[in-house]
């Protein structure tokens, strides 16, 4: 991955991860609104789209989401999903019609890949099951597995 791509990916993730529902400002700090993370909202929009009979407009999605999400919020989430290639869109007249291109697990996989690929500074946060192999390591490993009576395929 080149540097520009990495930068672009990171900038996507730097956006605030939390969008507040409905009339969040009305109650202020006294009435804490239920906060939904960006990931949860994306999943809800995607699952609404997956239940659609065909390509639908953003207002269709907005009506089917629980909580009063602003139209612009729904559009923002749809654009994010489009960037991640989890939805496709087609222009009909002056509006876009949206269609789901993957399921919830597929979306999670896309997002997880983004997190993993963004870690180019080799910091350990997640404990990986296995780590990289050098050419010598690979030969040694094949010999060990052969000795264990198991012919590794591939």
């Amino acid at each position, binding site marked *: *991955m080149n540097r520009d791509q990495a930068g672009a990916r990171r900038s996507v*993730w730097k956006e605030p*991860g939390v969008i507040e529902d409905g009339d969040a400002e009305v109650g202020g700090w006294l009435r804490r609104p239920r906060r939904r*993370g*960006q*990931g*949860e909202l*994306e*999943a*809800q929009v*995607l*699952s609404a789209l997956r239940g659609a009979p065909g390509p639908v407009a953003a207002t269709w999605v907005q009506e089917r989401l629980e909580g009063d999400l602003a139209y612009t919020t729904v559009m923002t989430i749809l654009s994010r999903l489009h960037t991640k290639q989890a939805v496709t869109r087609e222009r009909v007249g002056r509006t876009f019609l949206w269609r789901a291109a993957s399921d*919830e*697990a*597929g*979306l*999670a*996989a896309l*997002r*997880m*890949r*983004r*997190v*993993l*690929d*963004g*870690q*180019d*500074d*080799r*910091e*350990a*946060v*997640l*404990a*990986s*099951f*296995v*780590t*990289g*192999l*050098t050419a*010598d*390591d*690979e030969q*040694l*490993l*094949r010999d*060990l*597995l052969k*000795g*264990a009576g*198991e012919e*590794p395929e*591939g």
Partner: protein
Amino acid sequence: MGIFVFLPLVLPLTALPIARLAEQHLHPRSATRLLSAVGGVLALCSTLCLVLLVVVGTAQLPGNPLPDGWSDPEVRAAVPYDEVAGKAAIGALAAVAMACGGLLRRHVRVRRQAHEALAGLPGSPVAVLPDTQAYAYALPGMAETPGREGRIVVSRAMLACLDDDERRALIAHERAHLDARHHRYVLAVQLAARANPLLRPLRAAVAYCAERWADEDAALAVGDRRVVARAVGKAALVSRQGPAPTLLGFAAEPMLPGFALPGPVPRRVAALLGPVPPASGWPPAFTAVGLAAWTAAAGTAVSALSSANAAVALILVLTAATPL
């Protein structure tokens, strides 16, 4: 106090031989605990020592907010080469603080992003993602946020290359990481390595020992060490093409250039194919292992004592110099 104030800065030199001996001879559980405890104490002492030098160094700067008495000759006499050491320590402490802060920020950010990525999936402890790249991770939970418990993340490509027994071994391995909170040990030595670069050998050693610990726990859970060995070996061979394992592989960096040690994966497989490591706690004193353990304990104790000594001495000098 004298020259002893510098001792905690240099004593972490003992980390390299200790790490090497402990990871080869001790049970991985004891080795992980011993090495991260040694790393943590040595790093704290080294930082305390830096703070003391910074106090003396800052007091010499014109316009500093510290009491005037703290720049008296008696105070400066407490630290050898106070002019150079005091000012160098200011820069060093700032660098340590920035490095540790940056590491913690990145750690929290990646954990939050990874949980965000999994939001919307059913809350099962194992999340299987449809990905063509083979990976498996233990994602520690975030205690402050409900609904973000520790999870295991496995890609379909990884599961596809393993048979049923090996899949159980893989899940048991990741389960062991989560249950024993291995990420805390790894994070502790990573912070320690930033507090004092001489502690860097502990990073790779603790990462390796934590993997071995999880391997041994998985072997107990599955009841067959060879199954775990096969799972680790196959997974490594399948994921070798992808870029992800080296990106996040925390033991991937060479420990010292010139030492042609095999990488962590072949050593793990070889250890699993070998005999069960002795589970005894403290090793006898007159073996290589015992010597290493005792040297570690002694070095840590000396470091702790000399930094405590330096701290008390300096506090006494400063109290005497503070105008009432």
